[in-house]
């Protein structure tokens, strides 16, 4: 039987970071419509930091995410529409509102060692009848055995699959394999993988994840996403076809969506420049990139120096505020 995987498109969520959370209802309708037609299994739509992420810390959404979800729901016919939720930022109440706006799936994300803050949320999501994933971020910061322990907590409380995110784009293919394999061996629920391209390995790592048994792979059009971006969907579609693996994606439809719809709206090309390279090298959460650039500008520092220090301090996802702290300390407590 032909091997089969499912693609989770996160252009409208991780991509939101790269867009400064400025997606409009028109943009969402167009992109979601094309993704639905192109064969994405799940289309994730939220602020980059998940439901209720709109804030000074992470950047305000130009258009309220619930309106974006409703817009997508009005055009999507086949794919599921999902949200991301980070306990500590979004709440169960936010999840319920997203449910009313039209999601049929949710992924609840925690730092790789803190799965137990998500258990209430996963249980509630299941009660709501949502397709629910437990999502571990920054998986380079824990060894496979510890990741398994955390993943088991998700499995025990009813998650439909566990998603491993290389949020810093730090991992090598072998690191990805070991993490996916151990989960595949010991869990009864499927495993997914979310790559970042800071070391130019997003597609390769995603292929390694598939080879190790991952069944859900996160992709974005043109790799649009935080840091240097994510696994580039149109490229990944081609690779899966070459490898004889059914991904559900129609490669040329994905290519057209990327070029005709997304590309004209992109604010900057998704390249690996020095700062995004430093994210991957030092193991820093990808969404820090644009905030770190702004702080570097304001305080008269090098972005990569700020990022290196954040890596040294072992900052985790969500700690954008520490960018200001690092910049302040580096300047000896003075502004430029």
């Amino acid at each position, binding site marked *: 039987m032909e091997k089969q995987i499912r693609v989770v498109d996160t252009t409208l969520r991780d991509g939101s970071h790269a867009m400064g959370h400025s997606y409009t209802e028109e943009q969402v309708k167009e992109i979601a419509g094309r993704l639905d037609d192109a064969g994405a299994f799940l289309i994730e739509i939220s602020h980059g930091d998940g439901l209720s992420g709109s804030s000074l*810390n992470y950047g305000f959404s130009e258009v309220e995410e619930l309106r974006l979800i409703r817009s997508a729901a009005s055009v999507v016919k086949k794919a599921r529409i999902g949200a991301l939720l980070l306990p500590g930022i979004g709440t169960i109440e936010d999840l319920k509102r997203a449910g009313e706006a039209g999601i049929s799936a949710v992924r609840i994300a925690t*730092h790789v060692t803190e799965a137990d803050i998500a258990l209430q949320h996963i249980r509630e999501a299941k009660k709501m009848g949502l397709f629910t994933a437990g999502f571990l971020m920054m998986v380079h910061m824990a060894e496979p055995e510890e990741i398994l322990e955390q993943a088991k907590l998700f499995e025990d409380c009813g998650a439909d699959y566990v998603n491993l995110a290389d949020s810093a784009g730090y991992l090598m293919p072998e690191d990805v394999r070991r993490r996916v394999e151990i989960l595949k061996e010991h869990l009864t629920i499927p495993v997914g993988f979310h790559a970042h391209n800071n070391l130019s390995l997003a597609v390769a790592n995603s292929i390694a994840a598939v080879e190790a048994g991952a069944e859900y792979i996160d992709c974005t059009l043109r790799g649009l996403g935080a840091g240097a971006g994510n696994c580039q969907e149109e490229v990944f579609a081609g690779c899966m076809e070459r490898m004889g693996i059914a991904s559900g994606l129609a490669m040329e439809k994905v290519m057209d969506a990327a070029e005709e719809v997304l590309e004209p709206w992109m604010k900057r090309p998704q390249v690996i420049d020095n700062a995004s390279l430093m994210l991957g090298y030092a193991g820093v959460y990808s969404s820090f990139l644009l905030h770190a650039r702004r702080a570097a500008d304001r305080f008269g520092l090098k972005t990569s120096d700020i990022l290196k220090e954040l890596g040294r301090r072992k900052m985790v996802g969500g700690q954008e505020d520490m960018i200001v702290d690092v910049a*302040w300390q580096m300047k000896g407590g003075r502004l430029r």
Partner: protein
Amino acid sequence: MKTAIIGPGNIGSDLMYKILKNPVLEIGYVAGIIESEGIRRAKGLGIPAGIDGIGPILENPEIELVFDATSAAAHKAYAPMLRAAGKRVIDLTPAAIGPYVVPTVNYQKINQEQEFNMVTCGGQATIPIVAAINQAAGVEYAEIVSCISSKSAGPGTRANIDEFTVTTAKALEEVGRAKKGKAIIILNPADPPIMMTNTIYTLVEKPDEEKIRKSVMEMVERVRRYVPGYELRTLPILTGNQVTVIVQVTGAGDFLPVYAGNLDIINSAAVAVAEKIARKESKAL
């Protein structure tokens, strides 16, 4: 003044040590529901303690004030009994039956209440700053980000993450006087454990750097009177009408390790309120 503690866990035990050090407070009883380290600890220190519920507290007329360090559900059950027995109550759970109190900010307004709620650790760490900025500049919006070490986040915190964000946001508005509040909490497992850091973002009406700085620094000195480990990591940073301040809380290490500043600040605030009641003082700290 004689007090009692319900709930001999980490918070209750740390409270115990703080009260023992306090010149005007003493502990008449520690109540739990199961045999535990905490109960043994209390007995070891010569403090009456038991696992038969709060009867011994209700029946003891000498006990004037009770700290509840159990859970929201348990406190909702105890509250009417404590009220009927004429006890004043400091609630450290998310039950929030009584009004929120932040000793440097609103004690004066509510000092006659029978019951107080201590909000959250993040609330105690950030509301003083928001109030100080509000006084100087008028706060339209306040957003706080509390980061605590994974080690100092116990099962209670982990099962109540939503309550933390919602309660803290409410108190930013009701006590901090922000027109709108938002709260975020992050757990960080770094080793060695990080100290509790709190970032306070505000959007203000009148961004006067001098006035804001003065107000914030005065407030920090007031908080340090009961939380010596409370300090600024940055001065107020102004960008247009946005003010950013970062504070750090290093715990006193009475019982809990110093990185558990989050637990220390809520306990210190609770003891500060109790001390005011004992001294019959009506003004804010």
